C-alpha cells in the first residue's frame, strides 16, 4: 500500500507546480472565474476516468466510454428539452443512466459470455454507439435544458458542488478498495481470476459490476458534457484514451488489480489543467497531447522504479543476510 501513495504525491505535486508556474506568468490562472471553469471543465474527464479505473481494476479496458458520453448528450437533447421543467426532467435524466447501464451490461456480456477481449468488445460497442448517435442526430441539433445545466454547475464561491462530490466519491472509493472485504475481493479478481474463482468468488458478477460502474460513470460524465455543449452533438465525446491515461497516471496497472480512484481523480484534474493553461501561453493544443504522452511514459517508469530498486537490492544481498522468508529446515 505504501507504494500506492506515489501516484497521489506525484499528481498533487504536478498540479500545484503547473498552477504555480502559470500563476507566476499569468496572474489570471488563480482567479475565481478561471478556477471555477477549470473545475467544471474537469468534471466529464474526472467522472469517466473514475469509471475507467474500475474497468482497469478487473483487468479490462473500456474504449466505448467516449461514444457512450456522446450517446448520452444526444439522448439528453431528446429527453431533457428546454420546454420541460421540474420533475418532468427526471425520467429524461434516468434515461441517460439507463443507457449507461444497458451499455455496461452489453459490454460485460460480450466479455464474459462470448469471451471477447475487453478492448475488442468495447471497440465494437464504440462503433455501435457512434452509429446510433449519428442516426439520431446527424448534425448538432436540439438544445438541452438549461435548468439541468445550472443545477449541475452550481457552486459555492468558485468550487462547484459536483467537484466536492467527486472528491468525496474518489476518497470513499479508495477506502472501499483498500479497507474492505469487497474491495480486496475486487482486486483479487483483477490480479488473478483463476485463483479467485477457485476461492469461491463470483468473478463474473465482479466483472459485470465493474463494467456497469464504468458505463454509468460515463453516462454521468455525459450529463456534464451535455452541460458544456448544451446541444445534441453527435461528435463530442473523445475522452476514451484520456480516461485510460488518467487511470494509469493515477496508479492503475494495465494488468488489473491495482489502482486508485483518488489518484485517478487527481490525474484527470491535472490533464484538464494542462489543456486549460496552454491557451494562456498562446500555445497550440497539440502540445497538450504530446505533453500527456510523455508524462504517461515518465510516470510508468517512475511507478515501477521502487520494484526495480527492490529487485536490484535483493540481488545484491549476500548469503550472510538471508531473507526473512527462508524456511527453517
Amino acid at each position, binding site marked *: 500500500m505504501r507504494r500506492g501513495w506515489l501516484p497521489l504525491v506525484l499528481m498533487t505535486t504536478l498540479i500545484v507546480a503547473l498552477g504555480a508556474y502559470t500563476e507566476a506568468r499569468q496572474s489570471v490562472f488563480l482567479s475565481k472565474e478561471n478556477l471555477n471553469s477549470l473545475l467544471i471543465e474537469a468534471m466529464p474527464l474526472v467522472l469517466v476516468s473514475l469509471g475507467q479505473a474500475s474497468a482497469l481494476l478487473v483487468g479490462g479496458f473500456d474504449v466505448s466510454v467516449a461514444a457512450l458520453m456522446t450517446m448520452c448528450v444526444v439522448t439528453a437533447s431528446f429527453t431533457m428539452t428546454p420546454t420541460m421543467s421540474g420533475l418532468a426532467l427526471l425520467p429524461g435524466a434516468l434515461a441517460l443512466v439507463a443507457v449507461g447501464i444497458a451499455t455496461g451490461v452489453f459490454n460485460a456480456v460480450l466479455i464474459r459470455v462470448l469471451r471477447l477481449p475487453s478492448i475488442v468488445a468495447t471497440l465494437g460497442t464504440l462503433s455501435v454507439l457512434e452509429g446510433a448517435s449519428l442516426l439520431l442526430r446527424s448534425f448538432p441539433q436540439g438544445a438541452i435544458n438549461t435548468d439541468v445545466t445550472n443545477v449541475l454547475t452550481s457552486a459555492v464561491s468558485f468550487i462547484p458542488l459536483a467537484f466536492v462530490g467527486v472528491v468525496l466519491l474518489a476518497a470513499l472509493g479508495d477506502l472501499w478498495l483498500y479497507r474492505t*472485504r469487497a474491495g480486496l475481493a475486487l482486486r483479487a479478481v483483477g*490480479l*488473478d481470476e483463476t485463483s479467485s*474463482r*477457485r476461492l469461491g468468488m463470483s468473478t463474473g458478477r465482479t466483472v459485470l459490476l465493474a463494467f456497469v460502474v464504468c458505463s454509468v460513470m460515463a453516462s454521468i460524465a455525459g450529463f456534464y458534457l451535455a452541460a458544456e455543449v448544451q446541444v445534441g452533438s453527435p461528435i463530442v465525446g473523445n475522452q476514451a484514451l484520456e480516461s485510460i491515461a488518467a487511470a494509469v497516471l493515477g496508479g492503475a496497472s494495465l494488468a488489473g488489480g491495482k489502482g486508485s480512484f483518488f489518484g485517478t481523480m487527481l490525474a484527470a484534474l491535472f490533464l484538464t489543467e494542462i489543456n486549460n493553461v496552454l491557451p494562456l501561453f498562446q500555445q497550440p493544443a497539440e502540445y497538450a497531447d504530446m505533453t500527456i504522452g510523455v508524462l504517461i511514459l515518465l510516470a510508468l517508469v517512475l511507478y515501477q522504479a521502487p520494484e526495480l530498486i527492490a529487485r536490484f537490492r535483493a540481488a545484491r544481498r549476500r*548469503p550472510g543476510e538471508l531473507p526473512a522468508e527462508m524456511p527453517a529446515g
Partner: protein
Amino acid sequence: MSIPGPVSSDVLSVRGLSKAFGAVQALRDVSIDCRAGEIHALVGENGSGKSTLLGIASGFLAPDEGTVDIGGRRLRRHSPAAARRLGLGIAYQDYSHVLDLSVAENIYLAMPADARPPYGRMQSWAEETLATFKLDISVTAATSSLSLAERQLLEVAKALLTRPKVLLLDEPTTALGPDAVEHLHTLVLEQARAGVGIVYVSHRLPEVLAVADRLTVLRDGVGQGTFEAASVSEDGLVALMIGRPLQVAFPERAALPEEAEVVLAVSGLRGERFGPIDLVVRKGEILGIAGAEGNGQVQFLRALAGAEHATGSASCGGSAYEMHSPLGPLRAGVVLLSGDRRSDALFPVLSVRANATIQILRRLARAGVVGRSPERRAIADLVERLRVRMGSTEQPIQSLSGGNQQKVSLIRPFLRGDVKVILAEEPTQGVDVGARFDIYEALRAKAAEGLATVVKSSDPLELAGLCDRVVVMSRGRIVQEIPRHELGERRIVEAIVGSRAVATAPAGEGAHP
C-alpha cells in the same frame, strides 16, 4: 471392486461421472466415495483423469454425466462457491494464491465471506490461523516471495480454513522435502481423526500407502477398482495404473572414466539464497542436487542458467560464460529445464511442434522461412523416442498432460547440437511412472553422448537411482557429497536430515523474525 451406493457416512459420493474435452474422453462412468474420517487415495498416471475428477467434485468443472454429493447433499450448481458451501475444501496442485497479495490477504480471501473476521483484524487473525497449522510464514510477506514448499503448505491450510467435511488434496507434496511431507501428513491424519474425509491424489505411492485407508485407481479415465490400502502392494498398484507390471526403474549407468574432462566448473558462486558454491561436473556425469526444499537449490540452478542474479564465475568446457541473462549460458551450451514448465519454459497455446523447435528455427529455416515439414521431420523421431502421448504434433501443448509437456521441453536440448550442460529442475515433477522412465532414459542417453547434467530433485529415490554423484545443500551451501558407491535413498535422506541438524545447531541462528 464394486462400490456400494451412497452411505450416510459418505462425506463425498461421486457417481457415474463422465466428461469429455473435445474428442478426448477424460472420464468414463467413474464413481468414488469417501467416508468421514477416511483417507482415500486416488492414484493413476498423468492424464488418467484424476485432476478432472477433482475439478468436477470441487465444482470447477461441470460433468457431462453423473452426480456429486457432498455431505449427503447434491451439488446442483457447478461452481466452486457452491461446493464450498456444501462442505468441500480443495488444495489445488497449482495453488489458488493471488501472488501479488500478502499472505494475510490470501488467507482472508480463502475464508467464506460470512465467516471472515472484521477487515481490520485480518493481520492478527491470519497470524493466529497460521500458528494453528504450525506454519512459520510471515503474514505480511508477499505470497510471491514464498518458496514453492511454503506455497504448497499454505494452500492446504487455506483449504482447511473452511472446516470442510471433505478435503481434496491434489498432489500436495510435489514441492515438499521429506520433513515437510511429514508435517503435512501429521496435519492430514489429525484432520481425519477429527472426522474429515480426505481424498488424496499423489504420484508418490510410498507416501500414499503410508497414510491412506483405501485407494482408488484410475487408468485412462476409467476406474480400476477401490482397495483397502493394507491389502495392496506398490507393485500391484503400479501394474493397475499402467496396465503392465513395471518396476520404478532407472536406466543403466555406465562406469565413468576416473578423470573425465571437466565440463561445468563453478567457483565462488553466490546469490540471494545460496553460496559460495564451488562445484565441477564431468563429461558424461549426472550430478544430483538434494536438500530440504527452500535451501537454495533452485536458485543455484537458475543462477547457472542466467535466470537469477549471482556473483562469482562459472565456465563451460573451459571458458567462462556470462550469467547476466539466459542468453550467455545458452550460447555457451548450458540449457535449463525449468521446474515451472507452465510459466517459464513452454508457450501453452503453441503446438507441440512449435514448442519443440523454437530454439533452432534458424537452423531449420531456408532463406528465413521455416517450413513445416523440416520442423516435423526434426522432431518426429524424438517424439517417438520419448514416447510423447498426443493426438498430433499440431496440438496446443497445454492440452497435453504434465508428463508429456515435460517430454516436449526435453526435446529442445536434443534438437540443439551445441548443448554441453543440461540443468534439470525437478525433471519428473507431476510426471507419471511410465513417463518418468522415458525421461530418465533420455537424460542418461544425453549424458552418454558426453554432456554434463545437473538434476535438482526433491525426490531422494530419484536422485539415488539416476545420478552418478549427489551433493546435498543446506542453507545455500553444499554440506555433503555422496559418491556413487554410497548412493541410496536412505543415505541421501540421512544426509539431508543430518545436514539440517548441523545447520540449525547454533542457538538462535536461523530463527525466524
